């Protein structure tokens, strides 16, 4: 009885078994990369907003402190999105007739909120508190990036759990003196690790690694 398969089939079988390992590994790597890609994390993807608000103009151009608008960043979990009133503090005088501010004035007149699209959106089972991070010396720019160079707001960090844990495991790599928290032009010094360890001790920064720190 003749052989059903040609001799070369053995080679093909060996190669495909061996190759399957790479194929599976490749798939896993692909999934890993997709999960961290901007397509999923939306990092560096500018969102459409009802008003073309530029942080670059307001922060870098006008030198407005973060806390002028995000008033509750030092006292509450939520940093606060400014009420229309805050916009109108200046824009009742400056660009008071500009057409691109129509919807701000409309909101102020009609008492209807401006519907901003969330850029930094944590899942509902994760509880983040701005006030404690700011109090412990995590700079705005550490997570939000160079906001003063963003004409349209976009995410700078993935906000995925591994990203959170990176800092929670090694706070000394990221913390800065409390006085520099709102400084957008702060650059980490060369001896960051040394400084970080000093700050961790001084400011009682604990490595908050318990699940209940964020999930409850």
């Amino acid at each position, binding site marked *: 009885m003749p052989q059903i398969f040609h001799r070369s089939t053995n080679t093909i079988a060996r190669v495909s078994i061996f190759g399957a390992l790479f194929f599976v590994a490749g798939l896993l790597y692909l999934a890993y990369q997709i999960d961290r890609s901007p397509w999923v994390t939306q990092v560096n993807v500018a969102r459409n907003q009802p008003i073309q608000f530029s942080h670059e103009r307001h922060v870098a151009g006008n030198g407005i402190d973060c806390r002028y608008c995000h008033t509750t960043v030092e006292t509450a979990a939520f940093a606060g999105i400014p009420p229309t*009133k805050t916009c109108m503090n200046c824009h009742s005088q400056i660009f008071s007739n500009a057409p691109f501010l129509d919807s701000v004035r409309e*909101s102020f007149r009609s008492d209807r909120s401006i519907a*901003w*699209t969330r850029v930094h959106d944590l899942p509902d089972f994760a509880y983040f508190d701005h006030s404690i991070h700011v109090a412990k010396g995590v700079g705005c720019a550490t997570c939000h990036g160079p906001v003063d160079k963003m004409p349209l707001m976009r995410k700078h960090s993935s906000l995925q759990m591994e990203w959170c844990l990176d800092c929670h495991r090694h706070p000394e790599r990221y913390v800065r003196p409390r006085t520099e928290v709102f400084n957008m032009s702060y650059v980490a010094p060369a001896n960051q690790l040394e400084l970080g360890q000093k700050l961790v001790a001084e400011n009682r920064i604990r490595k908050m690694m*318990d699940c209940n720190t964020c999930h409850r």
Partner: protein
Amino acid sequence: MSSLKPDNAPEFWRTLAEKDGANLGELVGDEFASRLPGTFDQVERRAFLKLMGASLALAGMAGCTRQPPEQILPYVRQPETIIPGKPLSYATAMTLGGRATGILVESHEGRPTKIEGNPSHPASLGATDVFAQAALLDLYDPDRMQTLSHVGEILPWSAFIGAMRTVMTSQHATKGAGLRILTETVCSPTLAAQIEDVLARFPAAVWHQWDPGSELNAAAGLRLAAGTDLSAHYNVENAAVIVCLDADFFSCGAGSLRYARQFARRRRPEGAGCRLYAAETTPTPTGAKADHRLPLKPSQVESLARALAVDLGVAGVGRGTALSADAQAWLTAVRADLAAHRGSSLVVAGEAQPAVVHALAHAMNAALGNAGRTVLYTDPIDARPVDHIQSIRDLAAAMAAGHVDTLLIIGGNPVYTAPADLRFAEQMSNVRLRAHLSLHANETSAISHWQIPEAHFLEAWSDARAFDGTVSIVQPLIAPLYGGRSAHEVLAALSDRPERTSYQIVREHWQDGGSTRQDPPYTPRPGVPPNVSRPGLARETRREVDPAFEAFWRRTVHDGVMANTTLPTRAIGPIGAIAAFSASPATPPGGIEIAFRNDPTVHDGRFNNNGWLQELPKPLTHLTWDNAVLVSPATMTRLNGTATPDFTGGERGQIHGSVVEIRYRGRAVRGAMFPVAGHPDDVATLHLGYGRTRTGHVGRDRGFNAGALRTSDALGFGTGAQIALTGDTFPLACVQYHHLMEGRDIIRAVPRAELAALKKEETEFPSIWPVLTDEQEKVADYKWGMSIDLNACNGCSACVVSCQAENNIPVVGKTEVMRGREMHWLRVDSYHQGEIENPKSYFQPVPCMHCETAPCEPVCPVGATVHSSEGLNDMVYNRCVGTRYCSNNCPYKVRRFNFLQYQDWNTPSLMLGRNPDVTVRSRGVMEKCTYCVQRISAGRIQSEREGRTIQDGEVKTACQAVCPTEAIVFGNLNDPNSRVSKLQAEQRDYALLRELNTRPRTTYLAAITEMNPDLATKNGHKP
């Protein structure tokens, strides 16, 4: 006595089956027996596999979706005090039976989310009862009446004002002879002034009051004793001996929270001690706390009171019927104890007993010199004290005679609650114009022309007096969700300024000097413009505001109590021989006696549509969702009835009780029979508030209407009833058989005399785990722990509802409770000791123990339950895949699984009430007590921001915060000076199932008994 642990087999039992020595193996073993219908249709194996395969594939796909974009809607003009995400607390008050209890309500951006007690209010002292906790769910109830309607036609508020104007015009000629107003008990000074104002303009109109939820017999008894209308309250701080005559002193009535706290403080080891005697019919939490409980037929309580009064030297008292030997022995001991504690004892009569028993109790207190020390008398708290029974009788008679042209019913549900013999619904149909203000569309609304949605007390301004007269301003937390109107606004419709808001009405009342019965807390200054609400003065003037008033008003609203409004106590004269004392009670006829009681959770039916209260196991019976015919086990056997526990998936959540027909005075109802240990024989307790025909979808068709039997001459109890089996059975959802103790040693009690000699249990048990030392456990700043004092707990279950409100715990419904799937993170078990006829009962709240070596943790395949550095046993919902291994491995059975989608994710109003700081769990996720980790986090963040550590008492768990008896204490065990450390160091501290070496962080303090040595052995209790 050296150790807490009893040497012999457990003397405690939880269920009648255990007491009878039923084969536990049989009870536990038949795991899959069930008479419940399946949740799903029968599916073939192939179809099942297909569905599962597809589900798995789709679930994988679903995991790949990106988060949908969300919006942020900031304020246009942000209110000054509001920080988004930071709750604010406002003081207000809740009334029940007219009396106010001060509360603090937490508000998240204008949405009330949690109710706590107001520590500065005398009736609360920081605690609340179950009703106040559950009031939140009533506020958001989607079944509330939502539109104002007239004979089915939806109309605006102005139409009602117009209708009232017509009424006023037509009633003008007769001075209001055809106008009747029916209210519940009114303790609101403003509302009373408004009604008096209407009566002043229509002198022939009549104000009736009917409130089955208030203390009618107590008021009548005091009137009988003192000859005038008074109010009484108690000071348990001074009471070394308390005798309750069918009185559920710690869980019913105004002031009960305060009494429970004072009693618990006296009973602490360092307290002065307090011996409690209770003669009662239905086993109640008060009876369970009693050192000597005497089960008695309700008709015999009067004879017992008479015998006691004669012995204590009250003049002119005739003896009643003969007492049993047990009762005689009890009486002898009580008399001696009372005589030894003149001036520091207290006799309390219960609401179900007739006025004469209350009068006797006051006479005994007077004879013992307790008046002014443990019993305090004040002018009446009610704005206009009346005999409610006579009042509703008069109204029914007037309606029957056609004298009533317009009936305005302000709150309440008289068609359902009025005694059956008055045939209220039938008489009401004779009234030409019927208007009803109500939270829900109920039986009374159904036959009213005008159906007016009522504003919930969290939606409207009002005021009310507490049990001691202290006035609170009721402040709204939210604008009416369904356009509801308050009683003040409805009554204003009968004035010449009908458009005033409740705020204007209440504020103007106090601006004008408030109540006339007392020195006004704020006195108007001369020169301030006159009261514009006075009749005849239609001139609208904008009132000049006196800065002193503004300060007074702000202070009062902020504090939740009005300063200097507590009524002064007054003496009452000697209570002499009253005619009612000499008359001997008639010997009751044979047959069964019926005791009518307000239900422990749905009260007189007003909380019937509240899922939290419906699902809350009733103390001692552990029934949910239904009422039952409660009888003694002996009576049940005599009547050939049965109550068979049944089970699903190993959980025993159902009891099939024989359905019986109760015939009483020509009326009959049918209900399921349920045996209760400690219930006297030949008596059936029927709880009111069930069998509602018109209510929301939660309360509809639950239980039976015991009120259909109740007559106006015997509100508390009746004699001569017949009970007959019908041959049917009815499944009751009863959690008593869940989590059986299976022979383990769980409850500890120690006599006060042996406290000093007590040694803490310290034996080490062999373990396969490395045993951590205390030093090894001290890895973080905090080591959280909890101490639960069984001596203090009186089973009120406020902690259970508080936990439910704080932690977004869903309601699962009767069918699911019968499968043993209730979701409460905290349960209050009850245990009994001694004979079935009269056991001593104990309560034990059981939350997650947060074991140091938690058995649930190593068995989780996905690491969803892990230990935190501070010793918490964390539950990570987003990791949980629902294997339920943790629950199987938990020896305390405190883990709860979302078998189905229990949480309501669709009803918008219910979403408003959720706590935004706690994840709302979905189907397929395990959950359990977290030690209120959101509160710990908030406390930690606050303290870290301020550069300090969390102070003792700064973080309170939800269950701890509401506890009237301070039974639950939470804190840091690393701090040797914290309250919890000190309590856990007490000799009577013990860990539940310590032999398992789980090292629980929650431990218990043994109960302390204060038996009378003369009675201890006679009562069947071990000394």
